[in-house]
């Protein structure tokens, strides 16, 4: 958990993504800016349709260019990902930024052995002999905690359990020691006990290699465990960001508060009647990206919406005033985009 002493690994500035759909242009990401420092974990939180996944797919050029328009700047160690040629982007994807998706089978080739796939990745980005690459592959599998790594090299993905497959994907993502790791709902499909194993693994690897991590999830519990900083997305915008303590313990945006309130909490105390209180919910549904409301994106569902300004003027991200300092390092700003002043 180091601060951003050396320059940031990733610097995203005013990222915008539009997708052409049969229902019209979808404004999926609307001006997203954030940085990821070395060894830092930034969690991007949101519900389906918030644009959280698309925003990282856009960074790595993984959206179909025929339907997607991506603008803005995204400097990976000083080099703009959005201005790169496709060849350069392919080179960068391995050693620069690794990616782990929700379903490990989407990133694994079912007809190749695990070993072949790791060796392939290693040899595509570095000039190493087959034998050396195989040795390195076994080391990587051992590092991600696969029992019998030598034997696992000759197995096919379907012979492994879901958790083991996700470990293999992480091994592949880390095989070229990237400076940035992007995990998109990487533990969502896993059982909680396996999820705990994977989170421990990522934290350990991150500490060892100083990798910056973008952790995309809808699960605020996971965020509390893994993130240094949190960015809450709604309607393609960042509506709140700050340290994990600020955002989860002192949420300033009504959406963040609603999200936290709708989470059943294992640690919640029972009420005086011996029962747990009802969950506070966010009424309604998130807006369709083809049909975003004007003004504050959250106003149609907002429980505390005030004057007409909510419906007409888009609130900027402003620093939330606060009493105490953060838990560590230099004070990081806690910001929220809302008119209702915390």
């Amino acid at each position, binding site marked *: 958990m180091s601060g951003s002493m050396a320059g940031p690994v990733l610097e995203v500035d005013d990222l915008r993504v539009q997708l052409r759909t049969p229902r019209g242009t979808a404004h999926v990401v609307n001006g997203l800016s954030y940085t990821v420092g070395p060894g830092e974990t930034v969690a991007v939180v949101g519900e389906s349709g918030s644009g959280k996944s698309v925003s990282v797919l856009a960074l790595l050029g993984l959206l179909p260019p025929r339907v997607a328009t991506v603008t803005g700047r995204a400097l990976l160690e000083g080099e703009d990902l959005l201005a790169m040629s496709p060849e350069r982007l392919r080179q960068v994807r391995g050693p620069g930024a690794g990616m782990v998706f929700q379903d490990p089978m989407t990133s694994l080739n079912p007809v190749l052995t695990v070993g072949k796939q790791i060796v392939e990745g290693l040899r595509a980005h570095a000039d190493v002999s087959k034998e050396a690459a195989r040795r390195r592959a076994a080391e990587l599998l051992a590092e991600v905690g696969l029992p019998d790594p030598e034997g696992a090299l000759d197995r096919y993905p379907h012979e492994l359990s879901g958790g083991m497959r996700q470990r293999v994907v992480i091994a592949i993502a880390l095989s070229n020691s990237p400076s940035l790791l992007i995990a998109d709902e990487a533990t969502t499909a896993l059982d*909680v006990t396996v999820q705990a194993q994977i989170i421990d693994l990522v934290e350990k690897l991150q500490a060892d290699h100083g990798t910056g991590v973008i952790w995309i999830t*809808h699960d605020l519990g996971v965020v509390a465990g893994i993130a240094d900083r949190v960015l809450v997305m709604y309607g393609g915008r960042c509506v709140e960001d700050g340290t994990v303590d600020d955002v989860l313990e002192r949420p300033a945006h009504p959406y963040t508060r609603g999200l936290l309130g709708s*989470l*059943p909490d*294992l*640690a919640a105390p029972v009420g005086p009647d011996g029962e*747990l209180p009802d*969950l506070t919910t966010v009424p309604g549904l998130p807006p369709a990206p083809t049909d975003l409301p004007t003004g504050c994106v959250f106003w149609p569902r907002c429980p505390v919406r005030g004057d007409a300004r909510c419906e007409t003027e888009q609130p900027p991200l402003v620093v939330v005033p606060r009493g105490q300092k953060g838990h560590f390092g230099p004070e990081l700003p806690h910001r929220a985009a809302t008119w209702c002043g915390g």
Partner: protein
Amino acid sequence: MSNVLVSARGLEVHFPIGGGGLRRTPAGLLRAVDGVDLDIHRGETLGLVGESGCGKSTLGNALLKLVPSTGGTVTFDGTDITSLDRRGLKEMRRRAGMVFQDPFASLDPRRTVAQTIAEPLEVHGLHGGRRERAARVGELLELVGLDRSVAGRYPHEFSGGQRQRVGIARALAGEPDFLVCDEAIASLDVSVQAQVLNLLRRLQRRLGLTLLFISHDLSAVRHLSDRIAVMYLGRVVEIGPAAAVGSDPQMPYTQALLSAVPLPHPAMERERKRIVLRGDVPSPAAVPSGCRFRTRCPYAFEPCPTVDPALQPAGAAGQLAACHLHGVVGRPVDEETPQGIAPAAE
């Protein structure tokens, strides 16, 4: 009238696996549910938690005879449902409803919301005429928080949460006593999950339902349930009051499960010690002998491989746990009937 509405004794659901061809000799036996004893009390919400493959969903289906059981008994309001005739089964189906996981798959895409909700009424000849039925559908729509005007629309016009409400309305149409919710909130967004959880709780109280809430999400189960049953590899390994199981679990598996649940409190998360279990859940086709958790249990000791533990009182809050740490109670493993047939793949 007994206090117990639904009761399972030694319930087994085994599926033959592998072995294709004409002769159909199974290569092995998948023990999805393997000797479950469970009582569900009238008017309570029982939460059933466990990880994928533990058999919780199969158990829920077996209690409603939606999958055939291969051993043991299930009684519903005093009647053994494993030997029901056609008419008895139909009446049982009216009295017990089910809400399914995937709201996108559980509604027939070719039938309107109203036709879907009216199906139980038609099947059981309830609310006689067309007009009465249509009125009842409107009532049900309002009951689950939907607008009456949506009745004539097709499922694809709705969001996941709205579809799940339709699924709940269908399950409630026949005025059942018992409702099984099988991962009913798993495919919904967080804020929508909360809406459905609140709805279920409200309906349970208002209609006096007996609710079996099956989920992998321990937080949601704890929120909704009066009692919690924990399943591991086809068995109930711990059961007791929600508060007790949720805060003072007595079975090492429950302890590990509970410690792995992420909490949305950063400070708590930093201090928490997770119990990280070794390896993966064994395959239900190769269940370990004796205590089925022993291969991953940090406390496994000498009787665990040889005595199959029975549920016994454990802890101060009155829960039951199947664990030898609370005294070696159970059936010794019979050497002649090995538990696992095929060796483990891993």
